[in-house]
């Protein structure tokens, strides 16, 4: 174990210089891309075969292209962007930074929208957001009456927003604190005077709120910048604090956060190529909601003709006695009362009514629906099982991926497995929704799917089982270089079928 790690570490050191020169300027790329780039560097160094070079490099381009239409932001990046926007508006409109912040928040942090609205009708905008053109001067008196507690206070205990309505510092604190504790609505705080509507901005909050309230307020402002902004979304990864800024219309919605979580920026579910967001939503609903349970009940049970509770018949004869308190006795086949069954109907155990109906070809509508539900359920189980298997393998890969000090080609192999598993997983959801009657299309799709599965299976086998052998062996193994060549080859080969599958499934 240890010697292997050392070897890995040595190789990393050897290559590090080249990478610095080659890729040192790519600062805003995510860690994932860095890993892949490092790998490219490694490959260059190890073999000068140009054919070997192109294939992983294509892959590199693929990632690089995708990283161009989005940026991962940490908290500092978000604040910096926010400050830049505020500076811009404050400069262009010649208003205070606080006023610029209020305007931007109101127009969902869209600089262009603020500009458009402001220059179209400044007066209207000022009125809507509560920005007064001139500060109303403080009433000229030694003492003033607070509009909330009605106490008379010395001037220095009184504070006002731009409108000049006087309230004492204590009441301001209570007012601001109540608003902040009520949630993000505090960002639209107005003067307490009901007839006023002048905005109470961050300057007032900073001056009057407690330390704790101030930090909550700042948190709300940060969240507003991400959540109200049409270009930005929080990464849904568990415990992740990064946000992803996307250039909408720039291609794929699949993004990979710096925390390594891959998700669809549009629907915030995990990345799900080749299926579209709508199908994913349907599929997830199907897996979680009652709908399949309802189908199961429909397929495997019949309602008691008297009390209507669903009954599953798992063994025994056709003579059903419903559970107390109902206790109704009926025939499972025809759902008629058992008391009517006898010689007349051809004997207790040969309900001829049902048989007769079947012979005449009279198809009961309910029966037909039940049959279809059963088929659909089996179909769903088939697809769900395969979807779920890919999901669990994906998880396993994630875990295996943890020790990143391992050799880079192995990391690359596992990244490829994760990527392929994810795509394959969703092709099963796609397959489930392929129309029943499009047989030829379905057959070809499943053929491609099978090919992709088998390629991936070989890669997975090699990366997991064969690799295990090298992990357990003591000291450098003889066949290790061959193993590297094999795994690298499989890594490149496994995803080759995917574009076909992807192109095929996107109409």
């Amino acid at each position, binding site marked *: 174990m240890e010697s292997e790690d050392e070897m890995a570490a040595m190789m990393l050191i050897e290559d590090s210089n080249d990478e610095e020169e080659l890729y040192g300027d790519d600062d805003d790329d995510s860690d994932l891309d860095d890993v892949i780039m490092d790998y490219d560097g490694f490959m260059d160094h190890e073999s000068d075969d140009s054919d070997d070079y192109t294939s992983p490099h294509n892959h590199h381009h693929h990632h690089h292209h995708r990283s161009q239409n989005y940026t991962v932001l940490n908290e500092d990046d978000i604040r910096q962007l926010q400050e830049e926007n505020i500076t811009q508006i404050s400069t262009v409109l010649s208003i205070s930074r606080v006023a610029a912040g209020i305007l931007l928040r109101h127009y969902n942090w869209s600089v262009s929208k603020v500009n458009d609205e402001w220059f179209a009708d400044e007066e209207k905008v000022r009125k809507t957001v509560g920005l007064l053109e001139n500060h109303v001067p403080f009433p000229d008196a030694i003492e003033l009456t607070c509009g909330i507690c009605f106490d008379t206070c010395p001037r220095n205990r009184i504070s006002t927003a731009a409108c000049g309505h006087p309230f004492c510092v204590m009441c301001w604190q209570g007012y601001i604190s109540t608003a902040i504790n009520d949630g993000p609505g505090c960002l639209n705080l107005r003067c*307490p005077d*009901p007839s006023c509507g002048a905005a109470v901005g961050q300057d007032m909050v900073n001056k009057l709120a407690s330390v704790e309230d101030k930090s909550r307020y700042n948190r709300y402002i940060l969240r507003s910048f991400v959540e109200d902004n049409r270009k930005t979304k929080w990464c849904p990864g568990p415990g992740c604090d990064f946000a992803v800024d996307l250039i909408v219309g720039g291609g794929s919605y699949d993004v990979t956060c710096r925390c390594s979580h891959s998700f669809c920026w549009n629907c915030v579910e995990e990345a799900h190529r080749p299926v579209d967001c709508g199908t994913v939503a349907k599929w997830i609903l199907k897996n979680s909601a009652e709908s399949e349970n309802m189908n199961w009940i429909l397929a495997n049970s019949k309602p008691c003709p008297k009390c209507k509770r669903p009954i599953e018949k798992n063994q025994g004869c056709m003579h059903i006695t419903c559970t107390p308190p109902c206790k109704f006795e009926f025939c499972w086949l025809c759902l008629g009362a058992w008391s009517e069954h006898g010689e007349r109907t051809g004997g207790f155990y040969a309900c001829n009514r049902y048989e007769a109906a079947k012979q005449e070809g009279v198809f009961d509508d309910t029966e037909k629906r039940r049959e279809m539900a059963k088929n659909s359920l089996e179909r769903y189980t088939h697809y769900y099982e395969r979807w779920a298997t890919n999901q669990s393998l994906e998880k396993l890969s994630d875990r295996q991926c943890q020790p990143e000090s391992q050799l880079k080609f192995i990391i690359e192999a596992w990244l490829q497995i994760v990527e392929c598993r994810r795509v394959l997983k969703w092709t099963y959801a796609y397959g489930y929704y392929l129309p029943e009657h499009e047989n030829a299309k379905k057959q070809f799709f499943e053929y491609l799917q099978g090919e992709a599965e088998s390629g991936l299976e070989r890669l997975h086998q090699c990366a997991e089982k064969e690799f295990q052998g090298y992990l357990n062996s003591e000291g450098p193994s003889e066949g290790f270089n061959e193993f590297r060549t094999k795994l690298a080859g499989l890594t490149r080969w496994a995803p080759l079928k995917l574009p076909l599958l992807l192109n095929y499934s996107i109409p």
Partner: protein
Amino acid sequence: MNQASRARLFKEYKEVQREKVADPDIQLVCDEANIFKWTALVKGPSETPFEGGVFQLAFSVPDQYPLQPPQVKFLTKIFHPNVHFKTGEICLDILKNAWSPAWTLQSVCRAIIALMAHPEPDSPLNCDSGNLLRSGDIRGYQSMARMYTRLAAMPKKG
């Protein structure tokens, strides 16, 4: 907090004593034993089906007053789209999310009188009443409302 609300209510109490003459339509009374319980008698606004009636309101003031609004309900039965016919509960924005600590019990009474004169049939607590107005049956609404004003809000004759 309790101290602040108590002080503020005491100020309102003194103000009410002074304003009694100023606004003859509102009579606010504080519970002798509990400054957080108030009742009010308001006159039905003129040129409405509530004219001539006197309606009793009950106020329950929270500890966080005036940062939080008081709870108000009608004790007198009233047929109005924004008042629950059984409980007397009132649907009024300033008693919920549009509350401001600059409002007083007195100004809440004034807002309720304004609501009596200008019902909001689109957010009804009393659907029958709201539907009459929404379907444009002003006469139907007015006669129902006037009937209940006579029955519940006017002193019995004889």
